[in-house]
């Protein structure tokens, strides 16, 4: 009896492995293509072994106007956007998590509601509004909008993480005369380090990959982040150099993949976002 159960388990495991490998292979094909093509001097649009490995594609794109400027722009937009998001959400989460108030529930419901609004829908009115108040084609305007669009989810997450820090630790500090701001910065935030890391990385990754917001709000080519400038490879350069486009994709994607791996490791492989929204 035990034997049949264990052999049934084993065959079931084999079936599951086979099923997963089929899906994994399908999902891997496009990824494989970008890696192989970036190293291929004669890259085209299908997955194939490179005829001779080369770094020429990377050499060709690692220039100020093609790669460094857009990446720097991305870094400025997403760096300041993330900073603003994290600071504002940490401050906002504190009273929501620590003090009882009649404000909390309606505020949190509003935040939850805003979390799931399709931001794409408001880009046209935001464009029209930004034209009127002269924020169009400015880095700061785009940064503010990035931060605002990420804030609802950041506050929601931050509050949930903050709820996990026991209040007793702060009460000791309060009796010693610490202000609530001091106890937030010195006690609560250090204790919820992984939570802050998740909010930071998630906000950064969302902004780094976002195409529509900078596409709408920025006009000057010099200010374009990588998410928009990659589009130029298609349109304006005539013949598409697929190898270079692949190399650029690799360079542009690597930071967010590394960041994700870093956070996933730190949280023991599990992913807190999945847990935070699973209901």
């Amino acid at each position, binding site marked *: 009896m035990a034997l049949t159960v264990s052999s049934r388990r084993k065959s079931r495991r084999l079936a599951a492995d086979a099923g997963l490998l089929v*899906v994994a292979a399908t999902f891997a094909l496009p990824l494989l293509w970008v890696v192989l093509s970036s190293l291929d001097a004669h890259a085209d649009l299908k997955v194939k072994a490179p005829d001779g490995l080369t770094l020429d594609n990377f050499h060709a794109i690692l220039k100020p106007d093609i790669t460094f400027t857009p990446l720097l722009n991305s870094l400025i937009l997403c760096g300041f956007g993330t900073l603003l998001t994290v600071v504002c959400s940490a401050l906002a989460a504190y009273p929501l998590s620590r003090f009882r108030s009649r404000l909390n529930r309606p505020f949190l419901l509003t935040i939850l509601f805003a979390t799931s609004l399709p931001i794409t829908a408001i880009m046209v009115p935001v464009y029209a*509004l930004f034209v009127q108040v002269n924020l169009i084609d400015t880095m700061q305007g785009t940064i503010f909008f990035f931060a605002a669009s990420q804030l609802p989810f950041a506050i929601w997450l931050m509050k949930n993480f903050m709820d996990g820090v026991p209040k007793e630790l702060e009460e000791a500090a309060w009796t010693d005369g610490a202000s609530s701001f001091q106890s937030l910065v010195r006690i609560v935030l250090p204790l919820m380090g992984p939570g802050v890391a998740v909010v930071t990385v998630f906000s950064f990754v969302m902004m780094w990959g976002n195409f529509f917001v900078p596409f709408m709000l920025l006009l000057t080519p010099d200010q374009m982040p990588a998410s928009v400038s990659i589009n130029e490879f298609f349109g304006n350069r005539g013949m598409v150099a697929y190898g270079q486009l692949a190399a650029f994709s690799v360079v542009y994607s690597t930071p967010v993949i590394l960041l994700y791996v870093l956070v996933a490791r730190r949280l023991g492989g599990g992913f807190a976002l999945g847990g935070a929204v699973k209901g």
Partner: protein
Amino acid sequence: MTTAPRQAPGPDATASAPGPALTQSAHHQSPRNDHRTLRRVLTHLLPLSPAVILLLLFLAVPIGYCAYIAFTDLQLTGQAHSSFVGFANFRTAFKDTEFLNAVWLTLVFTVLSSLVGQNTLGLALATLMHRASKPVRTLTGAIVITAWVLPEVVAGFLLYAFFRREGTLNAILDWLHLPSQNWLFTLPILAVSFANVWRGTAFSMLVYSAALDEIPQEITEAAEVDGAGGWRRMWHITLPMIRRSIGTNLMLNTLQTLSVFGLIWVMTRGGPGDKSQTLPLYMYEQAFQNSMIGYATAVALLLLLVGSLFSVIYMRLLRTEV
């Protein structure tokens, strides 16, 4: 964001919007407690204010502005000369076959890629991962999640390469001696839906993995001993136990899919013709190719209303947790 709940049909979200609640609580304090009140204001409201100011200026005001210009004939060229046109934009929209086409395609795109694709595949992957060996589980997880973490435009570009006539998919079909075709031309909406599944399934997979982890093992084992097969266990035990996760996951996938722009833009630009032009792309085209900002905003408002409707359902699902 204080204006947001007022637009929503939720009755008690309207009644308890932050504004009135605040003035009320300040009003009821006796003079003796003045400095207590001040302290409360400092500790409660001051930390909230940067976030609230950003949300009001950059989300609430645009949404309000959206609700206003949707009823005007604002154009890209003549900013100063817009006038109020009532519901004309909406009437135009519902008579425009291109708009109705976009609504239909958005529906197809959402149902195919989010409800069927991401959701079902995510659940299947999570279930299989529960039984699979560790190396296979880790490998699959890493690949699927990488597709999710990639920037939207890169994902779009990779799938563009996959589906092009001279791309990977046709190379495989040729190798299998199956007929190939120009997918982005013949079945663009199917191609972009597949792209969205490729990119978005990781989220469902993570949500369902977490949900399945929480089902006590004894329950599944007991059912197994009683002779319930895999499908019956799935239908009668697993699905009912994770139904809340299913609800929230479907909701979030739908909202996410409703606002996909970059992926489709890179792959097809909404074409050929308007065969993959979902509502966000239609809205963009009306605003910038046809310069009809007022009309495009009316479309945006409709999209926002649909999103709000889903948002409210989502809030109801999560309500007990606030």
